[in-house]
């Protein structure tokens, strides 16, 4: 199996989807000729022509709005928002239109589109290149929300998202585009080629939306997380010596409740970790769900380790980012609670 970065895996998924289904079209700002500022669509215009992959004016509302119209026509648009921080101009088209079109028309029109966007911090991007807005989508009925953490998943989940008949928000933590970043920003970057999840099968495969992945088995505490923080949690487990079971949720809506509940019932403890701001983050939903469904098994309160409730700072990003020390500390607290 070839080793791929997450960028290559995403590119590959695009190419396979476009190859198999000529209704798949790909567009966004700088996505066509240039191949995307993170190069995730590099080569697609050359290979499939500018009618399948093209640049757009700088208008997120326009990108998603025309995608909804194209989807209603019968295409499967897969669009890129250059940074998740810039999705808000398109928020109305996503929330009021894509998410509800099937329901409001009783299935007469549908919106099978995929909206990809790089999320998360760790690249000194400041408040407008670092956000993790997943909770702003998970609250919206009709949307599916995916967050990827590694190349293998990224390819299989992106293919599943494009093939899915509902609108999918597809979040790509940019900090793991090139390697499994574990939060130790002062250490050398580990490339995906040195990680088993960097091994990506050739050809078509999908990972069903709604299935979590047990990233690391363990008995002490269940860690619910996704994206970059999967690797941070892994580092925290190793460094703290706590035998954490780390669940990479992969899809936030629909959520794999069974995997979560089975694990928490076994460990009796649960830590929720994400990079987005704490208040009303998706961690709140996870915490609420866990205690609703595993209340009598819990030996300690479900604890959240998240970004602070501040804008994502530029210079202080490592104080904001929930790194391995903070996660390990929380693990210890949950173990001793």
């Amino acid at each position: 199996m070839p080793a791929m970065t997450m960028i290559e895996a995403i590119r590959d998924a695009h190419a396979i989807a476009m190859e198999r289904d000529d209704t798949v079209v790909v567009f966004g700002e700088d996505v066509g000729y240039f191949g995307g500022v993170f190069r995730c669509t590099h080569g697609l215009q050359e290979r499939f022509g500018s009618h399948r992959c093209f640049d757009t004016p700088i208008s997120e509302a326009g990108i998603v709005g025309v995608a909804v119209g194209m989807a209603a026509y019968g295409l499967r648009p897969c669009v890129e928002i250059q940074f998740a921080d810039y999705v808000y101009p398109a928020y109305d088209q996503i929330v009021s239109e894509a998410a509800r079109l099937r329901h409001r028309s009783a299935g007469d029109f549908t919106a099978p589109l995929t909206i990809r966007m790089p999320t998360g911090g760790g690249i000194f991007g400041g408040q407008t290149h670092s956000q993790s807005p997943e909770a702003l989508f998970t609250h919206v009925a009709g949307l599916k929300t995916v967050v990827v953490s590694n190349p293998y998943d990224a390819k299989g989940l992106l293919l599943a998202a494009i093939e899915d008949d509902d609108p999918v928000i597809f979040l790509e933590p940019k900090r793991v585009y090139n390697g499994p970043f574990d939060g130790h920003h002062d250490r050398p970057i580990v490339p995906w080629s040195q990680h088993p999840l960097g091994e990506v099968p050739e050809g078509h495969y999908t990972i069903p939306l709604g299935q979590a992945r047990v990233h690391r088995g363990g008995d002490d505490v269940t860690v619910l997380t996704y994206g970059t923080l999967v690797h941070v949690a892994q580092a925290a487990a190793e460094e703290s010596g706590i035998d954490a079971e780390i669940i990479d949720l992969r899809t936030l809506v629909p959520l794999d409740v069974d995997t979560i509940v089975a694990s928490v019932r076994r460990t009796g403890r649960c830590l929720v970790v994400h990079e987005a701001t704490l208040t009303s983050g998706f961690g709140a939903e996870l915490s609420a769900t866990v205690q609703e469904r595993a209340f009598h098994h819990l030996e300690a309160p479900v604890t959240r380790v998240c970004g602070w409730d501040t804008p994502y700072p530029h210079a202080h990003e490592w104080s904001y980012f929930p790194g391995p020390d903070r996660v390990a500390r929380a693990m210890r607290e949950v173990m001793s609670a």
Partner: protein
Amino acid sequence: MDNPIGPALQLRIPEPARGHRPADPVPYISAAGEMRKPDLDEKVERIALMRKQLVRVLDDDGRAVGPWSPELDADHLRQGLRDMMTVRSFDARLLRAHRQGKISFYMQCLGEEAIACAQRRALRSDDMHFPTYRQQGLLIAGGYPIVTMMNQVLSNEHDPLKGRQLPVMYSSKEHGFFSISGNLATQYVQAVGWAMASALRGDTKIASAWIGEGASAESDFHAALVFASTYQAPVILNIVNNQWAISTPEDFARGASATFADRGYGFSIPALRVDGNDYLAVYAASQWAAERARANLGPTLLEWVTLRVGAHSTSDDPSVYRPDDEADRFPLGDPIDRLRRHLTVIGAWDDERQAALQTEVDALIADAFAEADSHGSVKSGHTSSPSTMFDDVYATLPRHLVEQRERMEG
């Protein structure tokens, strides 16, 4: 080195003299036949010179004059009259249903019937319209079952939208009528996307986008024009200028521009102002725009000058903000009256036939309503099963909705 200071600044806050508006609130009214008809591929700059003119075909005497006069035989014209009368009768019946307490809400298009009816007939049935809530004429002129429309309005067991949508928020892919959104303007850019998709596929179908003049202030209007202009999408961009957006007159959205057609010229999109109460002008201008789109000549913007004769909706009381006699003073008259007069002038119509048609249309509507009403309404509790609300949130029911549905039922 500081530069000179000025006087105290002022803001222009539009405050049209409601209740004592000038007799002719609509500027730039051309005579019928006055405006020339440009070639489909005429330079946009030259077409722009006509942006303050008004495409008009029917003159005050009911004659069809000038280069825009479409070639429509008497059968077609009679059909157009019938379409418009059906819409008006439909609206009247449902307003009555509202007064009878059978429905919670309704929106009529009184006075604006020509626009949707004629455009529907000027386009093909496989083109796709992205309407607002005042284009019921598209469905009626397109032959969509009237009983089904009424079932939707009543939200009864036969409502194809299963009681999910407000009355009048129809949807019919088969009839080229995109699902109506309650959120203004979103459909405008979607129409451009649909048109782009059609062209990307080398298809022949075009899209038609609809918006009220008030909603053209929304941001999605801009996105639509940007994308339509950049990709030269095969789309008709309709702006229905019915003079009002709830309580605010059209100049709030128009600003300092002379016309809404101006907006198109900001993007080099050919734009015409058209007498929206003139069935023939509507037909001709729609046809012209459709031919441009079909010939790969790109988008066309059409400003329809008309009047919202009634209230904004059944929730609205316009007496607070507009003069009673506005419809009487409106210089473009009534679309049904005008087409009827034209048919009479060309010898294809008379009072008897008019009376007969009115009776026929009213009976059709009455029968349709009786049938729809027999299926009950939301008020009488005859709706689809509440548990259907969980369907179509997604293509297949995810586990959390299965659980919630069980909880609701249990």
